[in-house]
């Protein structure tokens, strides 16, 4: 029912390994690859993992919950909990840019609040709005499209924009199926999520949370005791 469903099945190999290690006792790596970076809809998740993710099976069945694999853990986004306050966007830009902004934020809420598809406060006037961010694709359309080769995977497997090389052409913005990179109109440089966690730290609703990998592993193993 919302934008968190449609996500890439690709992600960096380093992260794949972490997920695989964390979850191989609960489900096959292939299964988790299908759910990572997309909505969990269609999957039955164990009670211990539900508890860890702070969500319900019904929320998963409704397509409200998505997960993103990150170096420091699994990013869980629960759209039903998003209250639209945009503190994630503000914290993202305060920490990464030293300014307050929504447009250049690496996590995106503003563009979903008024209208997202049929939804949003100004569309069907329903209460569907949510944060959205980089899928950390294994085969990144943004990086592939960059004429400068400015988008590269750092030591943690996170794709970042080399600010020296970036010429602000916007090819990455166009190439990304979700238009997640953003060219800063002031600096003319592109930026994208670097998995710093500032958005999660400041989310007053816990709609964004990062579950450390050891906890994910422990919860997964608990099922099999």
């Amino acid at each position, binding site marked *: 029912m919302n934008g968190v469903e449609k996500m890439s099945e690709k992600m960096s190999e380093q992260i794949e390994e972490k997920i695989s290690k964390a979850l191989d006792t609960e489900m096959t790596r292939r299964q988790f690859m299908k759910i990572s970076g997309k909505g969990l809809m269609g999957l039955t998740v164990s009670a211990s993992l539900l508890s860890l993710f702070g969500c319900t099976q019904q929320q998963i069945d409704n397509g409200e919950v998505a997960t993103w694999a990150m170096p420091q853990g699994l990013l869980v986004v629960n759209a039903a909990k998003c209250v639209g306050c*945009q503190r994630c966007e503000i*914290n993202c830009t305060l*920490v990464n840019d030293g300014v307050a902004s*929504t447009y250049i934020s690496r996590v995106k809420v503003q563009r979903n609040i*008024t209208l997202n598809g049929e939804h949003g406060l100004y569309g069907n006037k329903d209460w569907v709005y949510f944060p959205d961010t980089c899928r950390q694709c294994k085969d990144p359309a943004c990086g592939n499209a960059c004429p400068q080769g400015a988008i590269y995977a750092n030591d943690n497997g996170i794709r970042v924009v080399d600010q020296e090389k970036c010429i602000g052409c916007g090819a990455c913005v166009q190439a990304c199926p979700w238009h997640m990179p953003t060219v800063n109109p002031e600096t003319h440089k592109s930026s994208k999520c670097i998995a710093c966690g500032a958005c999660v730290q400041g989310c007053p*609703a816990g709609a964004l949370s990062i579950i450390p990998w050891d906890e994910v592993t422990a919860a997964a193993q608990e099922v099999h005791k």
Partner: protein
Amino acid sequence: MSTNYGWAGKILRVNLTTGSVTTEDTAKYQDYIGGMGLAYKIMYDEVPLTTKAYDEANKIIFGVGPLTASGVPCSGRMNVTTLSAWTKGYSILDGHMGGHIAHNFKYAGYDALVIEGKAAGHVYIKIDDDKVTIESAEHTWGMGTFDTNRIMIEENGSDFDVVSIGQAGENLVNYSCMLTSSCDSAGAGTAAVLGSKNVKSVVVRGTGNVKIANPAEFKELCDYMLRELIGGNNNHNVPAVPQSWAEYSAPSGNNRWAGAPGRVWGLAEGGPIDMGEQPYDDINKIAYRCMKGQFDFGDIAQKYMVKVGGCSSCPVRCYAEYEMAPLAEYELPTRVSNTCMPIIYNTTWYPEGVKDFVDEGDASIIINGAGERALDNFGVWENYGNLLREFNWCYKHGVFERVLPKEEFDAVPWDLMKEGNPKWMWWIIEQIATKKGEISHLGDGTYLLAERWNLGQEFWDDNYMQTISYNGYPRHHGSEDVYQVGVLYSIMYNRDCMIHHMINIVGSGCPYEVYKKTLEDEFGEGCVDMPKKYTPMNRSKARLAKWAFIGKQWHDSATVCNWMWPMTQSPAKSRNYKGDHDLDAKFMSAVTGDKWTRADVDLASERISNMLRVMTAISFNINEGSTNLREDHDTICNWVFDKEPEFKAFEEGTVKLDRADMELAKDMFYEEMGWDVKTGIPTRATLERVGLGYMADDLAARGLLPA
């Protein structure tokens, strides 16, 4: 000081008569901070107070300030200033709105939008960063705000925000407001001023940013505020019901920190979401504190709540967002949301009572849902409940039989009202918004309505009406909450005061002895009375009243939310529940890079407060022939002193005030403000102290400056 940080740096002017779009530097207005203060300076300089609200020469100014959208929690407010069309003296007033539009506006690069002149056709103003155009609104003119806003976003893009007037603003209804579709509204008739200029909407997208001088320090301050200072809605600092981490909870069991374990958003996508406990220092749980639906309607709200909303930057979500299925049977919209009068007061439209819909006790919530959509669709403002009370009062006093032509009276669908049908509100609110029939004069406003329908002294002095002054607006937390102090600031403006400084404290549920100490440490012994046991006026109370009054001007200029700020209290036992009144200055320093102190904040607040006072004095002189604000503006309706006849003033259990004591209260308050005690008009010494010597000259030239 410079406007490199905090301020956007530019003021946008759109002249609808000439079609010109220009910008100017904000720097020359910096002494007036932003929002309200900046707008008052522009109005004073450019719009003679002889101008009428709907004249082409009037201007309407949207303003934000250096803290707006900076990331300061609860900084999503926009101030809208213009001239009053409906209160005695027809002086300057403001509407105020939250939501997401202030952020967009600031990020588009502007501190203010000054709308001048009058368009030849119906238009909307499109602000896309530095591309500003005047576009045709012929296709949305005549529509309600929800349809208009949807069309504006569909046409312009999902990263825009928009505020529109409804039919009430188009038809120059004094009781009108402009709305976003998250139902944030600037009221007080500001929409009709837009309507008089043929402006339907203001559409805005901002891809820019607010520069922060010391971002790391600033982020720390934000986290400090969120971990140690902020409470629930209205900054209530203890939870309504006990939580395991909390020493106190509200004795009444009800306040605006209503979230608690077992209380749910029942219609959340994917099943109910439990509010759980919200330990005061857990940033990731703050959004579950408020649960305004629970505060407004009790447990029944859980059945219809989907989630909560509010303003950009604010973690305390004071808007309950509902899906009310029972309204579908009446072919009315089911998705409703608001936080204040438009969603809590609509049963007043039913003097014969309301009836339940599905569950026992659900009449109020369902009627309020329907009323919210009606008021907000047509863009009708209700003068903090006076519109509804005026209808109710007139119904009960047989006024409609007297003033409506018989044919009109007989055609009113009274049956809808008597059967508690929610469509009744849609009918009567549409009459008001479209100026149909004599009954639509309910939209004229208290002051003009009383005269037109000859409602008499009984109308003004009825305790039920809650009209605080003979200028035509109600108390907004007055004597019923903070006695003399509440009345003093309720009569200072040219609309209801919108000051929440004290209700935030006395309504918090925190023990009296605890908040008494917090306030007495700053304002002196006896500044705040025990509930229902008030004492005669004293100097400490005058200081307290001044703090609240000038603080409101700071909030509307900086801008931060007066429902949350100032941070007087704290939910932290380790702080003895005491907040931090230096926080505004700390934020100003971190944002702007200039050293700000509490004294700097207070001086700016006093400056703006005196601008309000001087402009009010000039308007009252021009329009009422008055040379004395104390006698002609600062009036207090008799019910304040005559209510609860079984009590004498000062007796335990009453909130009725004493006339002589209230005159003493005015004396002391004027003295604290540096105003002439006889006339209530600022002295030259005061005006010069706050940097308004030119206003003293103006008053002198008009014969209004106190000797």
